[in-house]
């Protein structure tokens, strides 16, 4: 039987998994892998920092629903991936990261460019492997992809020592993977679902609280059908945006620390909270005792550890949320065309009253500074709400979540759980490779964009026509807001001095640079950027001290919001 080198086997494994793109950065430990990859049909995108390789694989995964793949070298290459891996871990994104490693006899010897990356990433990967024998290579890779994409998805790291990659073996790719100790439970318990439906049908003021699990399970259609059928209002976390149509009248907007007034008030006053694919994160709940205090709680999630971790629930259901919603929809179908619209009217009217009482609002003076919210709305209008939007972290992220309404899943890419600045730009690049037919825009702050600005080279090298909208307020915005509200406006180390001229930086890299300094320039400059099929940086000089509202201060109940 023909024997191949470990590097050739690596490529054959990726091909067997249907991988057609890898984001990475070469080095000594992976030079053999790169030699073989270059001769294959798999496209390799050379980034300019390994952190960006993982964020790009992550953005690719979120936009496509497939597993994203990154390849980096040993030592510093591997350690540079840790932030990206931690972000994918917190947000449950399926990526497989391959790291080079020193030859096995040198492991543990403080060799050149050696790190114990398996040890370092143990707490922030779903699982990881050090391949110690070439005969284990294929099974490890197959297991890595299987683990990344099944159950609650997550990042998996595979560490490849140089001698393993050089040794030879026969290619034998496992047809299926069975891991005895890993049996995620997709099928929800029917009895529990019946109990849940019973509560739902009896509830006077039900509320659906969906999250990233809806996107991961591709449950958006089933959720929409269910909510509309029973006239139940819907709110989502940052991770779930797009899982329910943002233009639908039953959509309340995002909930939580910077959620809408009506979403947070609905949580505080509902009598039944239906949590699907969400995990009661502290950015959402605020003070736990104040979260849905008058409600029974149903919690549907594929990961048993999220159930009862933060809050007691009445009906826990472990299972895939799409399967659960399909079953619930079937059960509702058996109720023969009854409508809940009339029953639900008082609750929906109350919610509407809250929305009228305190809508998301800002004041754009046509002769004043550009308001960042205005930029997001202008982008929404110019793209008809159909673009793929990635964000960085902080105020730019929150305004994007508030003011860009998504009507489809897999269009909003944001580092939610880790809150990692520098995520948005490389993620946008990865997303574009997944969906080259879409307009892809990164909404960034002046702080965040400088964390991975070197990826302008990547965008230009491959002519990736992503647009970067920098909301430049010359501050580390969100921290400044907290300092204004809670630290007597002592802006300690949040004034971003010596910011570069972003237009010239874009041009220096060979991209297009545009700038708007007055409100009337905003829409034209966006049109200009969208019309050109090249990477574009648009710098918006915005109001320096604008705050994100509503805001639930730390330790407060979700209904105790600071308002405009």
């Amino acid at each position, binding site marked *: 039987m023909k024997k191949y080198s470990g590097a050739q086997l690596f490529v054959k494994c990726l091909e067997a998994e249907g991988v057609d793109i890898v984001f990475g950065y070469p080095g000594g430990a992976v030079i053999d892998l790169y030699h073989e990859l270059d001769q294959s049909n798999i496209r390799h995108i050379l980034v300019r920092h390994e952190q960006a390789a993982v964020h790009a694989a992550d953005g690719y995964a979120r936009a496509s629903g497939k597993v994203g793949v990154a390849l980096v070298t040993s030592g510093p290459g591997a350690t540079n991936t840790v932030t990206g891996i931690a972000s994918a871990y917190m947000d449950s994104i399926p990526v497989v990261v391959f790291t080079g490693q020193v030859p096995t006899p040198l492991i543990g010897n403080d060799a050149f460019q050696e790190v114990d990356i398996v*040890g370092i990433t*143990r707490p922030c990967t779903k699982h990881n492997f050090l391949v110690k024998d070439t005969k284990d290579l294929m099974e490890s890779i197959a297991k890595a992809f299987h*683990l990344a994409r099944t159950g609650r998805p997550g990042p998996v790291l595979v560490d490849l020592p140089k001698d393993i990659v050089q040794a030879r073996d026969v290619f034998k790719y496992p047809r299926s993977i069975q*891991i005895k100790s890993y049996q995620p439970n997709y099928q929800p318990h029917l009895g529990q679902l019946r109990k849940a439906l019973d509560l739902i049908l009896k509830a006077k003021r039900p509320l659906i609280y969906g999250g990233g699990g809806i996107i991961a399970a591709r449950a958006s259609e089933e959720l929409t059908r269910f909510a509309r059928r029973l006239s139940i209002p819907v709110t989502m976390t940052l991770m779930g945006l797009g899982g329910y149509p943002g233009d639908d009248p039953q959509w309340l907007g995002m909930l939580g620390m910077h959620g809408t007034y009506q979403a947070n008030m609905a949580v505080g006053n509902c009598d039944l909270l239906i949590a699907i694919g969400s995990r009661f994160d502290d950015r959402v709940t605020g003070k*736990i005792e104040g979260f849905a205090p008058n409600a029974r709680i149903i919690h549907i999630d594929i990961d*048993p550890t999220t159930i*009862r971790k933060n809050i*007691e629930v009445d009906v826990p259901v472990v299972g895939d949320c799409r399967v659960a919603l399909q079953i619930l929809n079937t059960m509702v179908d058996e109720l023969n065309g009854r409508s809940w619209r009339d029953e639900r009217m008082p609750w929906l009217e109350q919610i509407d009253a809250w929305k009228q009482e305190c809508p998301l609002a800002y004041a754009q003076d046509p002769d004043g500074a550009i308001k960042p919210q205005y930029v997001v709305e202008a982008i929404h209008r110019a793209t008809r709400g159909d673009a793929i939007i990635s964000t960085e972290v902080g105020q730019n992220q929150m305004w994007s979540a508030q003011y860009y309404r998504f009507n489809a899943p897999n269009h909003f890419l944001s580092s939610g759980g880790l809150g990692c600045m520098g995520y948005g730009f490389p993620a946008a690049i990865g997303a574009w490779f997944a969906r080259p037919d879409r307009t892809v825009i990164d909404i960034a702050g002046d702080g965040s964009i400088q964390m991975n600005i070197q990826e302008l080279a990547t965008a230009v090298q491959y002519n990736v026509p992503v647009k970067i909208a920098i909301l430049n307020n010359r501050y580390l915005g969100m921290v400044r807001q907290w300092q204004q509200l809670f630290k007597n406006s002592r802006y300690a180390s949040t004034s971003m001095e010596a910011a570069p001229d972003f237009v010239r930086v874009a041009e220096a890299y060979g991209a297009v640079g545009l700038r708007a300094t007055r409100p009337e320039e905003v829409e034209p400059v966006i049109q200009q950027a969208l019309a050109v099929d090249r990477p574009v940086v648009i710098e918006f000089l915005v109001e320096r001290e604008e705050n994100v509202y509503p805001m639930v201060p730390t330790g407060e109940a979700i209904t105790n919001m600071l308002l405009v």
Partner: protein
Amino acid sequence: MTQQESQETKHILSVLVDNEPGVLSRVTGLFSGRGFNIESLSVAETTDPQISRITATVPGNDAILEQVKKQLRKLINVHKVIDLTDAPHVRRELALIKVRAKVEDRAEILRVADIFRGKVVDVSPSDYMVEVTGDQDKMEAILSLLARFTVIEIARSGVIALPRSKKGEK
């Protein structure tokens, strides 16, 4: 509804895991990363050489233990998590106790060891090493009795345990 405050108890968890390098590190890393405590830990191969058993004593209330068990089960290398505390089980611990054995104390030390069905496994002109097995109460008792002779060194194995078999018909 919020987490219920309940009594803190000590649970013995028996965890079957892949017998592979790094697995113990995953388990202990899980505990330290999430702020769970391990009071004692013992690990060794089972009859299946690919599976090891980790026996850990974990203090906590019901809510904490529920999270600990779920988080352990979530680890890819963990096959099974059994909480022995609530079912009939046998628990044992082994201790090697090196105690100063002055001539005038030797007889008494031997008597104490004998009462606890321990054995003297090492002798020197200045000290005895006593080996004793039993449950934690027994360990505490013999240690307190030997304390007045000066315990020089002690090595304890940590608790191991297995569930009792069902009595009655096969």
